[in-house]
């Protein structure tokens, strides 16, 4: 089976406000407020409007951030966050 690809909600639909350790995201299309922890805002940031697989997203994250762990071991983390975001409509599974 081909790797699933995801596209983030267009940035114009999101209002992001960092507060402390957590950030708020107001999602205009749904009218919902989400309180999010890293790496969610960073993932949405690097995804832009592109359809991406898990590994591509991780690659983009690693270009901008020090990730600490081997990227290989972070694949399930990013995949889990994508599923979570897809259920909320913040990313769309393509």
């Amino acid at each position, binding site marked *: 089976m081909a790797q699933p690809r995801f596209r983030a909600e267009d*940035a*114009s639909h999101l209002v992001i406000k960092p507060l402390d350790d957590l950030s708020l995201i107001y999602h205009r299309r749904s009218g919902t407020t989400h309180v999010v922890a*890293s790496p969610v805002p960073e993932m949405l*940031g690097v995804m832009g409007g592109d359809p991406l697989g898990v590994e591509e997203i991780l690659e983009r994250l690693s270009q901008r*951030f*020090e*990730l*600490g762990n081997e990227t290989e071991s972070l694949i399930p983390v990013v995949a889990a966050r994508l599923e979570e975001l897809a259920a*909320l409509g913040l990313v769309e599974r393509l």
Partner: protein
Amino acid sequence: MNDREDHSQPDEAQAAESLAVPSRRQMLMMGAVATSAVVSIRPALAQSAASVMNCEIPVPDMGRAGQYIAADGRLVPPDTPGAFPAGRVFKGEDVKAAIKGRSLPGTSYEQSQAYMNYIRRLQAGNSGFTCYASLQMPR
């Protein structure tokens, strides 16, 4: 395509800016697979009574387990005369039926009345409160 919002579109560059990363090569906490990274704000109470057909109301809540329920619904020490032992969990729909006059399942009439009086006294912050309050919502 479904997005026919009335609000004015924000400045796209500005929105992109807010998504941008503060500084390069910053350490990013990735968290663990099983740890959810999102809490969505829900209305202070569920909008529809139907939504709580599956919800439950513990009598009493776990923090006060072991106490008995007096006829008027107050929590009293175990073995208080006239009070009923508790430690039961009722489904929202059973409570809803009880609001309309039935007895809670597996209880005598007086026992059901006592438990219902306890439930009616629930305050915000007690477990079961949201369930009970939303049972009273209009459909």
